[in-house]
């Protein structure tokens, strides 16, 4: 148990410093998603973001994804999952497919479990990060806590990254 905690902490520090170093680079998002994907041994990781230039948008657009499955390109901002995340400021875990609630969390039919995490600050939401696995009960308490902390850590960095993007491009262009 001790080793596990130490490893999780070490990983958090490693990824945190890596993200910090690349906070102003284009590959910041890639680093964040890829590392989360690898550490959690997920089968799909998708980062959905609001466009910071347009206020009151009605959808979050897929910004970067990793995994073999084709995820949806956008999620409506009034979907049950997004509303819950915004309102509760909590992360959501789904251990098994088939429940009526939070089914949007599984981005492909073959996915069996998943985690949805808020990306943002206390006062502002930038997007949602979703991880899926092909196996039921894939995610453990440690993985959940780790990802939750990583997203909290990355929230501030996202703020800087998006601000810089905003100034540079006067709006993010989604493909």
């Amino acid at each position: 148990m001790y080793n596990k905690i130490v490893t999780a902490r070490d990983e958090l520090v490693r990824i945190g410093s890596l993200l910090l170093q690349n906070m102003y680079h284009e590959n910041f998002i890639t680093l964040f998603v890829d590392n989360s994907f690898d550490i959690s041994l997920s089968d799909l990781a998708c980062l959905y973001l609001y466009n910071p230039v347009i206020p009151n948008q009605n959808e979050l657009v897929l910004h970067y994804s990793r995994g073999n499955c084709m995820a949806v390109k956008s999620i409506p901002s009034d979907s049950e999952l997004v509303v819950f995340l915004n309102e509760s400021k909590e992360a959501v875990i789904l251990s098994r497919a088939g429940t009526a609630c939070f089914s949007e969390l599984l981005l492909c039919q073959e996915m069996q479990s998943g985690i949805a995490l808020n990306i943002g600050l206390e006062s502002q939401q930038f997007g949602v990060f979703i991880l899926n696995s092909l196996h039921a009960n894939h995610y453990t308490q440690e993985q959940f806590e780790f990802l939750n902390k990583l997203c909290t850590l990355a929230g501030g960095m996202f703020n800087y990254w998006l601000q810089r993007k905003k100034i540079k491009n006067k709006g993010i262009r989604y493909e």
Partner: protein
Amino acid sequence: MNEIFEFIRSLPPLLLFLGGGSVFFIIIFCLWRVIAFKRIKKILKSFNKDPDLTKTVLLNKYGAGALLRRSSIIEQQARILGLKLIRLIGMDTLWIGQLLKKKTRKHLLRVLEFAPDKGLFSCFFVCLKKRYLFIYFKKWLEKSTGGGLKLGNIAHSCRGERFDGKAGLALCNDKVDELRELTGDVEWNVRYFAINMLLHEKSIRVLRALWDSLTDPQPLIREIVITHFKPQEKEKFYNVLFQTVCDDPVYQVRARAWDRIQKEYRDLYHLEPRNFSAEQAFHILELLRPDNKQEQNFALTFLDHSNLELRFAAAQYLEKCGILNKLFLEVDFSDMQIFERNFSLLKKASEVNVTSFLACIANTQNRASLTIASSILVETGDVDFISILTRKVFAIYDGGKEMEQLYRATVRCVAERGTEEALFFYKYELEKRRMQKQVMSILLQMVPARAGFILYDILFAYFLQPFFEPKEQLRMALKKMPVPKVLSRCLEIIRAKQGRYQHIIRIEALKLLGELNLHYCLEIVLEHLPQLPLAEARTYSAVFSQYPRELVAAKIKKLFNTNDNRLRAALVTILPQIGHKELQQLVRDSLTDMDPDVRIASVWALVEFDDLKALNAAFEILRDPVKRVREQAAEAFGKAGSNANLDRLKNIVLDADEAADVKLAAIKGLACSGALKAIDVLLSLLDKCDDYTKQIIQALSAKKQTEELMHLIEGFRNGSPKQRQGVIAVIEQSGQAVEEPMLELLKQSTHSLKPYIAELLENTGLIESTIRKLKDRNPNIRQHAADILSLIGTHKAYRGLVFAARDPHEEVRVAVVKALERLNSEEGKLILKELRQDPDKKVRRYTVWALEKLKIKV
């Protein structure tokens, strides 16, 4: 002959008299007629010489009825003198009017003879009503034009009068082609005449002309076509109608088109606000009908529109159909969402001056409605409603918190826009509430200056009551009253003989006089300053910042040289506010004054001057022989707050040889200090001075600012057992006073002190009292309690929260679910399983979330 005379003689005298009288009158009448005939003939004959004079004389002597009665003589003369006479004296108009009224052949022929240009259409119009006249009309036309019936002539004399086109077409059914040609005439009246008749013709060529007429430049033509045209292509016609409703610039045309849609195409239209431009939406809003739900909803979407034109049209419509009244009356504080929504909509309506819904206040006691009315009437709306509102609200206000907002808003309404009647209500309210300090405070704060003639007497009556509260607000109110009256009364009180007025009233009069800011009264105010207690003089000294500095300084210098100790002490107290550097030396010198009050005032003045150098030099004053000087000096040193001072105060407490009184003064000084270091000093003293623990805890209890509390909590985290115990005692002692700021600290969830704050809050009994609030009947209080417990987040708090699992308020149950997830207990899981069947979707969603999270917890 004799027989006739005999017969007459045999008649009774009365009959004879009557008969004779009748004959006499008939002769007189005939004579009068002959004279009148000759007179008018004479006037008419003068027409050739001077037509204008003839007209003036004729019209002065004869009215319309008299002229009409003399039509035959005028006709005769017109035949001799020409038709110009008829036009000049306006007989053509009179005859046309008579023709339209009587509709006889005689009148028809008269008009045709003497006013053919002007009256042709009227003749045609009469023929439509009396068809037999058409023969004469047609004959005359044939004769006058030398050919057949020329409709163009009739059309030209038409001026857009309404007439029965169907009947017209029936008279001229052989003239359809001519009518069709007339539809292309450049004169609108001609086109109107033709189209009005052709509307009842069904031939294809005519239909085309009618379709074209839907876009005729003359609105009257568009209007009649829209009203009477009945084409086969229903959908095409509906589209034209709807387009007309949206885009036609003339209201009457749009209204006719809308009528037609409502009558025949009601099932075809659907109003979707997004589909219309601003102008189109405005046109539609003008025409909406009061009884249609869909149209009401359409209008409601525009009530909060940023375009004021649209908002105005929507508000007018909603006012007409009573929706605004409904929005106004159907509000309740138990559903704040609806209240806020309705309030916002009504406010928007009031911004475009649609406020008649406020009249409903006369028939309602609904507090929510009255609250809305009061908020709107402050800015706009009929001022007469303010009187009604005032009467109602002043009658029902019970002094409770729930109605305070309504009461304040109503008082503001009266103050800002109230009528004289409302101001009298204000006066009665001032009389009625004289024993309720809070209410008086509201009333006095908002006393309007313009109500001086009504309120002055009652306000001054209160001013003379020694125990009246609130005094400050009363002075503020009196400042708004007529200055000559207030000034003379203040001077009278200040200068009155001892015993006439109580001291407290004198003080108030002096304060009021100073606050009036009358420079010519400065000497009086300064000379009477000793009447104020020193502490009060210190707060009062701010008044002098409004006076010219040099003037105040010069007067103080002069007064300082007098022998009066009380005056010197009072002057020293106000010096810092004046901020004159030259006067600072006076303060330093006064530290060694014989009078204790002067010494106290000097210490405080140095603190306020921020003259730390002089203050440090005067530290010995802590050992002053007079106790109150020592105490006040310690307090002053504490407030001055330099680190060196605080250390010196600490050393005094630790000094074994120091007198107890001085030590207590030093602790008091530390309590008064605003510096965070004072907390450190007091905490360190907790370890070292067991004899003064109680006083130190009391001193620490004075620290209630958020920053101070945070420092105290840090002291708790890092402190020794004694210090930790001391902080717990401080929190216990402070109780409710520190709960709010500590909860605020707790909300900063990232703060590392969170567990310590929670631990301390457990000691204040906050958790138990909050758990009790979970049973309150007010759902807002229950939800607030649940939020607090979630925030504290200790095991004890979560356990308390679980009791509310069956709360009817969904937000409370959501908080329970979150608590159960944190607790992660077996019994919690059972409750969660129950909550999975909760009727509220939100609660079920949170329950699933919690259960899923618990699955991964070991």
